[in-house]
């Protein structure tokens, strides 16, 4: 009831102090958090296991995490709810139960859908730039930086001042003193 009262007056800054406002904010936050958590607590009791064999499910999830759903291309097959992903997950479950190893299962999918199904593409002539392009660009950039810095060092030569020049500098510096520049 108290939170509600404060909430009502929330936009009247002159009615309540800043401290009270923070308190109100905190209370509202706690109240909302409770609202969020409560249904999930209630639901978690009713949740049923996804598959009869958790071991198979674990392996299937680990595999599909790195596989692309071809329908919703920015989602992994593990995350996607698309029909396509459902089918692939079912297929992988069946293959795991048939004692296929991970390599075989991934090869099965690559044979049908191509490397595009992999989020982690293999190193091939066509993917060389993908794998080593960033490194090449970094090395080129580093080289350019070194060349640039070396050239600059040549350009900026150390200058030694004569006695007369030093005095001039000092007097110029003193001129500005007190002016608070």
């Amino acid at each position: 009831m108290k939170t509600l009262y404060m909430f009502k007056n929330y936009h009247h800054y002159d009615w309540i102090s800043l401290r009270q406002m923070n308190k109100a904010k905190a209370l509202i936050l706690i109240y909302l958090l409770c609202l969020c958590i409560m249904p999930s607590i209630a639901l978690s009791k009713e949740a049923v296991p996804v598959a009869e064999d958790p071991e198979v499910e674990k392996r299937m999830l680990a595999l599909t995490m790195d596989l692309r759903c071809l329908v919703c291309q920015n989602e992994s097959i593990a995350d996607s709810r698309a029909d396509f992903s459902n089918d692939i997950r079912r297929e992988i479950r069946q293959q795991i139960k048939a004692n296929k190893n991970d390599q075989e299962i991934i090869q099965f999918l690559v044979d049908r859908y191509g490397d595009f199904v992999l989020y982690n593409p293999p190193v091939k002539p066509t993917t060389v730039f993908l794998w080593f392009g960033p490194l090449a660009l970094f090395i080129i950039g580093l080289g350019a930086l070194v060349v640039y810095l070396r050239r600059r060092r040549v350009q900026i030569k150390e200058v030694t001042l004569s006695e007369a020049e030093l005095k001039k500098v000092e007097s110029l510096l003193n001129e500005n003193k007190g002016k608070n520049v």
Partner: protein
Amino acid sequence: MMRYLIPLFAFMILAAFLLVGLTLNPRQVPSPLIDKPAPVFQLNHLHEPEKVMASQDNLGKVWMLNVWASWCVACRDEHPLLVQLANSGIVPIYGLNYKDERTTAMQWLKRYGDPYTISIVDQDGKVGIDYGVYGVPETYVIDKKGIIRHKQIGPVTVDALQKTIIPLILELQKQV
């Protein structure tokens, strides 16, 4: 002068790459099955469920396999073209009814016309996975030796038929 032009050239190269990228369609994933033997299947007919069709039955002729479903909206777009192509007698089209209800599928064919020499049923999408189907419709051109020669992703269009599919089929039919 050059030091000002270099960034400009670098930018132009980058822009050219991005421009080309804009024209590409990320939904068109090239199939690794092109020029590979078509996956073998044995599936029940749609109209006469007790009959079975095997993919090997089609060895020795060029044929098209069209993956379709009554729930697929884009299939309706390409369907008149398929009916026309079937009537022309250029190539036999086989329909793979993908993850569909038998009765709705048959009603659909009755309503929009049936271009298929034989319709077969892939109820659970297993054969679809073998063929690398990830969307409907998809159409495959398979040659006399049972090799997949072309895959049309998405609906068949007049353009695709005239420029790619029909010339390819005529070419393949000449082969022994």
